[in-house]
């Protein structure tokens, strides 16, 4: 155990090998490391948060997209490292998260360091099931301390347990924790630093199924364990919330509120942030002399950073809601009601929340797939989520639908504009489900289906600290990883749209009034690198009826869909680039068989609408896909397949509409 295994590994006297620390800065291999093990819903993470608070650093376990939470616990003058392992029901792992736990507890694992001791959280109200995992953990031979959680709930529900007898029966220290409040944790903290003095069982419990059942029975019996009654409160609430009629109604109402909150509550904050960045941008433009540099800083950098920050209100809000839903126990009820519908798309109930969130924006929606235990389900949902009609598509839809039909057009008694918008939403949702279904079928070949099971915990009060930490963690991760990608894309696109730079003389010679801002930007765009690209890809988009100017708009909107509107406005030299409809109406095709005709015919408009419905026009989405799936492979696949589908559907739509008009 004394070899050097290469850069990054350090061996300590006890034969304990440390882990490469690229992801986890500040991990001090000299401190004792304890790990928290427990099933989901056992209060493990609440305990971790209470013990470590904001000192938790996150990273990833090597080779998998499972987040790693490590924190410091200080007790008097001593410190130790505490790791919050993913929740698991068993060391016989069936998912990557659970495999991480099995690997960390595996003394022979080549890369993952084994902790010095383990803290096992057992929910006192589900002890009969939880003891099974305790037996497996005890079998590893590592020092173990048991923390019995929810003992107050056990008593409230007429259950009971003799903790001293239980401690004798399992042979390891047992402590109880009720609320996880800081003051209460004193005895536990003291116990943690004394991990080397923990009693270990004389004989580890059996792991063979029939034997472990008899062990559990014996332990519970000698501990005087009385099973708690069914939680009255939960049963009463579930009688409504899971009622076939009322429950479904309440559910849809709750989802509507959920969605509205994300859509409307976040908007003012987003608006405020956008104003802030707009202000900064203006300041830069006013005070930086060099026009090129000013524009680069203002539109490229500040615009890019602003674009990233603009997502934070939605992400924060989404994670607040999701954390509350999860911690209170409602999430499993929602998933229970939606499971059958989701199963049709090869997904499971929990995917519903991710898809619903994608109606506001695919970024938080894709991040919400973390609630799905199956990696395959996560990927399938991620591949479908961008097809949900996100709020960034709305400005594009509004513009194009406005060009397509007038506000007074009617389909029966309903306004035609509304009908088309609704149809776009519906088609988006159906396409998302279909896409998820396809990917789950493809994924099926890579392994057996994960058996579906979902614990329905009693309703509990979420801990404010845990919710806060979940939000903080999500936002910070987003800023660090995704932010870079969005910023890079914004800068690149800015360069494409603004280079080469033209001097006033050149522009004047071309007949442009250099004092007319709209004309100047139109000229710049017309002669930019992006325009060259737009012209270059004309053959690809020719069958859809798009000309190079629309192509430039599409290219620009790769950074964010709503940019399409402003870019088209600039292309059309519209007086107000944010309301370019008038300018666009008059654009004519410049060359080719349709020269002189109106560019935006109904067929072209319809094709463009459908193109935007399907195409992955969003660098932020690509960034988040990269982060949540762990590699560039999936974002590349998503981009590729969505482009092909978008092109095909746009083409077909153009044909059909062209034939009808």
């Amino acid at each position, binding site marked *: 155990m004394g070899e050097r295994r290469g850069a990054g590994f350090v061996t300590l006297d006890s034969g304990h090998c440390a882990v490469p620390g690229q992801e986890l800065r500040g991990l001090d291999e000299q401190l004792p490391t304890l790990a928290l093990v427990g099933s989901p819903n056992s209060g493990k993470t609440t305990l971790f948060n209470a013990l470590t608070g904001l000192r938790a650093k996150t990273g990833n376990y090597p080779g998998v997209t499972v987040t790693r939470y490590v924190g410091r616990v200080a007790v008097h003058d001593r410190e130790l490292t505490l790791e919050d392992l993913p929740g698991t029901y068993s060391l016989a792992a069936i998912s990557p998260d659970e495999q991480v736990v099995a690997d960390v507890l595996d003394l022979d694992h080549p890369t993952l360091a084994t902790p010095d001791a383990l803290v096992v959280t057992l929910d006192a109200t589900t002890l009969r099931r939880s003891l099974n995992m305790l037996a497996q953990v005890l079998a590893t031979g590592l020092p173990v301390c048991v923390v019995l959680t929810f003992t107050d709930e056990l008593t409230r529900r007429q259950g009971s347990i003799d903790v*001293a007898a239980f401690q*004798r*029966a399992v042979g390891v220290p047992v402590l109880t924790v009720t609320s996880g409040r800081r003051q209460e944790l004193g005895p536990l903290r003291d116990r943690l630093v004394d991990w080397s003095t923990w009693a270990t069982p*004389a*004989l*580890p419990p059996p792991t063979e199924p029939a*034997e472990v059942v008899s062990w559990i029975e*014996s332990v519970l*019996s000698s501990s005087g364990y009385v099973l708690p009654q069914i939680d009255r409160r939960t049963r009463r609430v579930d009688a409504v919330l899971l009622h076939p009629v009322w429950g479904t109604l309440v559910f849809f109402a709750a989802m509507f509120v959920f969605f509205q909150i994300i859509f409307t509550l976040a908007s003012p904050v987003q608006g405020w942030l956008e104003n802030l960045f707009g202000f900064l941008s203006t300041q830069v433009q006013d005070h930086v002399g060099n026009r090129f540099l000013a524009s680069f800083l203002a539109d490229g950098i500040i615009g890019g950073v602003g674009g990233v920050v603009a997502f934070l209100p939605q992400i924060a809000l989404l994670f607040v809601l999701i954390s509350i839903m999860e911690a209170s126990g409602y999430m499993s009820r929602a998933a229970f009601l939606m499971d059958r519908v989701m199963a049709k798309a090869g997904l499971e109930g929990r995917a519903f929340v991710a898809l619903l969130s994608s109606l506001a924006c695919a970024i938080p929606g894709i991040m919400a797939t973390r609630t799905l235990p199956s990696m395959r389900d996560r990927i399938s949902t991620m591949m479908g989520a961008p097809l949900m009609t996100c709020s960034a598509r709305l400005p594009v839809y509004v513009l194009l639908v406005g060009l397509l039909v007038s506000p007074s057009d009617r389909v029966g008694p309903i306004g035609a504009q509304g009908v088309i918008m609704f149809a776009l939403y519906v088609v988006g949702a159906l396409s998302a489900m279909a896409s998820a279904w396809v990917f789950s079928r493809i994924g099926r070949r890579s392994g057996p289906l994960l058996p579906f099971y979902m614990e329905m915990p009693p309703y509990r009060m979420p801990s404010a600290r845990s919710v806060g930490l979940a939000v903080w963690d999500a936002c910070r991760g987003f800023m660090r990883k995704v932010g870079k990608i969005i910023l890079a894309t914004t800068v690149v696109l800015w360069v494409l749209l603004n280079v080469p730079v033209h001097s006033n003389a050149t522009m004047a010679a071309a007949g442009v009034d250099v004092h007319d801002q709209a004309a100047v930007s139109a000229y710049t765009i017309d002669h930019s690198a992006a325009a060259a690209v737009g012209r270059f890809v004309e053959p690809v988009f020719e069958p859809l009826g798009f000309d190079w100017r629309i192509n430039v708009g599409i290219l620009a909107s790769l950074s964010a869909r709503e940019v399409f509107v402003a870019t088209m406005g600039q292309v059309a030299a519209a007086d107000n680039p944010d309301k370019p409809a008038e300018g666009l109406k008059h654009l004519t095709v410049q060359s080719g068989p349709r020269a002189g005709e109106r560019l935006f015919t109904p067929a072209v408009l319809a094709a463009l609408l459908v193109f935007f419905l399907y195409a992955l026009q969003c660098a932020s989405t690509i960034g988040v896909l990269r982060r949540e799936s762990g590699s560039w492979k999936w974002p590349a696949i998503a981009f590729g397949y969505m482009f092909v589908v978008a092109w095909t559907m746009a083409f077909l739509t153009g044909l059909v509409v062209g034939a009808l008009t």
Partner: protein
Amino acid sequence: MSAPLVPVHPEATDAPEVLRWVVPVGALGFVGEPSRVPAPLQDLYAAGVLAAPTVVEPAAVLLRIGAGRSWRDEGPSVRRALQAALARPQDWRPPADASGDDVLRAAAEEVLAGEVGDFVDGHGGVIEVLDVADDQVTIQLGGACSGCPASGVTVQSRFEAALRRLYPQLRGVVAHEAPSSRRPRLIQLLPTRH
């Protein structure tokens, strides 16, 4: 499927070679060193895995690991043997000098040695078993317990509850109060033979 295994689990004792295997209450119906044990355990004795003595308690069996052996290695096979043996209670034989009240007496002693005894001591009281006969136990409360009606009831009910857990067919516990003038006597632990 065969009948479910008898629930057992080991607990540590003061001596590392002895483990207290907790078994279901009333599994064997006697206490002390059995004069005969079923074959699965016999085999372990013969192989030197287990060493004498084996002591049966109201809700446990004390087993000693053989010299030079370890519980870690032999534990699983001991467990299986014990479970197999407990599945055949008829193949156990009580000690030669066993009498009907032994189990109840042992159970009462265990209760006194456990939390109830600690509770009484902690309150400055004294509790002693006067008589064990016919599924009934007579106790005497002294020290701080005598003269205090509340404590008497508490102690008696706790004692009875704990005793009933170890001896379900208990008919009742009769409590006398020691006259307060008497000096507290030491807790009587040895069985009185009449």
